[in-house]
């Protein structure tokens, strides 16, 4: 019985364990990996795929897919820099680009998928090509420089160490408070709750401590990381604790049953496809700010990394089950892997092969688990 429990523990927390093992191995092999500066870099790199991954999780939860996210990144980056070229200030260009690019592309995808029931794979595959074409034609095929210097702050600035630590402490406080409250309420009727939640609690605590070390001893928390954390926190709350979240799980689990339960399928799909496009556009804008300019090829193949993060994180491609937390772990695995392989000097050709293998392994593992 004891061995069984250990097996179940490993199975249900496999990705988390894989992340820890990967990180520990890298730290042992290469001493530059665990430095605060390097880890801060990893965190920043992860945010781009992570933000898209949050949206992608919602799409895949409703048994959909969005292949156009990478192209949306490119279009948004080009549009935000062009708007500034036309003289708009950064603070105005950013929401404009978000609304125009994320909003319109999301509505377009959502409309065809919800209204005409065109398979999302096809319609977003079309948008992948259309979007890239738009980015290339708007930019004339070459990079667009940033005209408003204040734009750089979005992608490159830091929240200084002191406020970062205060924020982390606040997050820890809120987490502890919610935990205590939920145990007061369910503790009596549900004895297994604590055991099931231990890995999550340990991971969150370790994550917070690590964040305190990484961001507290270097320049502070990069702004994109803060944005990602905020978005992920909102998404976790929405999926787990709101009516809208329930609608997503219902829709992905059984669309017809969801409709007959009184769920507005049309509206839900529209919202999800708009949200994923908005988040992809935000990623594009952050990337343009960080790179101080927009290449029309920005975001190429991001859809694959985003889908990989979601799948590695345990969300089922057939819909109805999955979590944002899993996707974050998935994105971290990809980020740590990329970083580690670069540090170790693995050729970028081999990096592709290894990444592909890991994605295949993750899906295989998912299939195995379903069988049991």
């Amino acid at each position: 019985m004891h061995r069984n429990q250990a097996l179940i523990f490993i199975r249900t927390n496999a990705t988390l364990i894989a992340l820890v093992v990967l990180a520990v191995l890298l730290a042992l092999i290469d001493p530059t990996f665990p430095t605060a500066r390097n880890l801060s870099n990893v965190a920043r790199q992860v945010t781009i795929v992570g933000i898209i991954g949050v949206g992608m999780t919602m799409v895949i939860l409703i048994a959909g897919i969005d292949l156009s996210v990478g192209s949306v990144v490119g279009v948004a980056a080009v549009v935000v820099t062009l708007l500034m070229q036309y003289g708009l200030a950064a603070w105005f260009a950013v929401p404009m680009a978000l609304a125009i690019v994320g909003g319109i592309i999301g509505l377009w995808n959502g409309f065809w998928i919800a209204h005409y029931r065109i398979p999302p794979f096809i319609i977003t595959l079309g948008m992948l090509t259309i979007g890239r074409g738009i980015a290339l034609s708007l930019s004339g095929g070459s990079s667009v420089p940033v005209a408003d210097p204040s734009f750089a702050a979005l992608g490159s600035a830091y929240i200084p160490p002191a406020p970062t630590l205060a924020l982390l402490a606040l997050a820890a406080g809120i987490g502890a408070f919610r935990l205590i409250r939920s145990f007061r309420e369910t503790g009596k009727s549900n004895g297994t709750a604590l055991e099931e939640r231990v890995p999550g609690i340990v991971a969150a605590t370790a994550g917070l401590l690590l964040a305190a070390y990484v961001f507290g001893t270097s320049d502070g928390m990069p702004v994109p990381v803060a944005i990602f954390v905020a978005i992920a926190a909102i998404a976790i709350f929405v999926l787990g604790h709101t009516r809208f979240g329930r609608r997503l799980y219902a829709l992905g689990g059984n669309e017809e049953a969801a409709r007959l339960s009184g769920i507005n399928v049309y509206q839900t799909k529209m919202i999800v496809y708009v949200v994923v496009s908005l988040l992809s556009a935000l990623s594009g804008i952050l990337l343009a700010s960080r790179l101080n300019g927009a290449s029309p090829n920005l975001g190429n193949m991001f859809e694959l990394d985003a889908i990989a993060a979601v799948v590695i994180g345990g969300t089922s491609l057939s819909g109805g089950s999955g979590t944002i937390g899993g996707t974050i772990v998935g994105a971290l695995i990809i980020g740590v892997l990329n970083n580690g392989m670069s540090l170790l000097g693995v050729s970028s050709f081999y990096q592709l092969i290894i990444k592909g293998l890991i994605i295949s392994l993750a899906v295989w593992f998912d299939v195995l688990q379903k069988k049991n």
Partner: protein
Amino acid sequence: MRTPDVVLKMEHIVKEFAGVRALDDVTFEARAGEVLALMGENGAGKSTLMKVLGGVWPYPSYRGDIFIRGERRRFHSTREAMDAGIAIIHQELNLLAELTVAENIFLDRQPVTGFGAIDWHRMNDDAADLLGELGISDIKPTDRVKHIAVGKQQMVEIAKALSKHARILILDEPTSALSDKEVAELFRVIRKLRRDGVCMCYISHKMEEISQIADRVAVLRDGRTIGETTAVSDITMDQIIERMIGRELKEMYPHATRQRGERILEIKNLGIDHPSLPGARKVKDVSFSAYRGEILGISGLMGSGRTTLASAIFGAFPQATHGEVLVEGRSINIRSPADAIKHGIALLTEDRKALGLFLGQPITFNTTISSLQTVSSPPLGVIDQSEERALTERYIAQLGVKATGADAIVGTLSGGNQQKVLLARWLNASPKILILDEPTRGIDIGAKVEIHRLLNQLAEQGVAIIMISSELEEVLGMSDRILVMNEGRIVSEFSRANASREAVMESATGARRTEN
């Protein structure tokens, strides 16, 4: 009958799942040329027992012995069981809809020509021979399975079993999706196989079928065999039911006299376009009313338009629906199920797995999904999970759902308990009009009586209940008033007093046929 020739014997079978005993010392035997009815409530262990026999749960995942013609066998795979002459016809048929009848019968065992290509000619001939043996003349080996009726599909399954020289045939609730005519044909085939010496284990809930077709009865309860296997002629139906549920059955259809209230739903000239035939109507010019505190039964054969009518009132086909719906005297426009729910209409769908439940989600999720406003607060719609749990636990207690807790995944529950969860969902939406499409199909008798009792309670509280059922006894026993549908029309209306089995059946078949 000839001297009993025992071909199948299962002895002291024990099967555990994660510490729970699904089968606890089951022993029975079945003879060549007999139909042995295997009865028991859902969750009693019938399906598990048949899976052990069929090699789905391979040796040594169970304990005990299986003897085929006196020889001890241990099946490590379904293939081995099949080779020993055992075939299972599952409740949900295992046919490939896109392939032809012959291709399904000879799936993966197709006769081949000298070049290794499939010998289509011989395959179709062989299939035709098998169908001929069963006396089936109205389907061709080249028909695609998706184009033939469910009853015929079952015949294809049986032909497939015979093509593998099965001598022990297990029929798992074979009539649950069949019309009366199809049932008659199935029984004819079963009788023929019995004459040929095939041993059949017949799993069913339906008492009337058992008396018609079975020779002996074995009853399972909580994973144990209850009493000795008994000849059907030596036992009454009430005794079988008592063995199944472990207590005396007072009344299957508790009916209280009650006064109906004011009219709440009025349907005027409702027509529904046929989904696949342009210009044709699946439901034609239907008008009727439903009243508070009344159970309105809708009877009719399968395909008569009952389910389509119910779904259309619930807003499932807004584009295809014509006519007028009035709730409490006001004409309303229902464009989606969400609209219907807002107007106080609820529909418990016929197919609880495909159209009702979220099988991978817990009971809580399934209970509140149609009425999340009862456990959440505007404007963000944040769900109060402790409130949700408390509410779900109240329903679990009220409806007697057997589950480990409110967090139990619905897919792991038995059919009757799943149905209760679905019922809890609609109770929580507090409907004024509750439409139930086959509310007790495929669930055990204990749960059935409990659901009936609950429907009576709801009617007494003033809910208008519209109940569709294929089971004549249920319609007659529960309804205050009965509408009968035939080919998309309401052809007659009976009050409780003047409804009889014969009269309802006669108008449902649309003719004064005196068949059966």
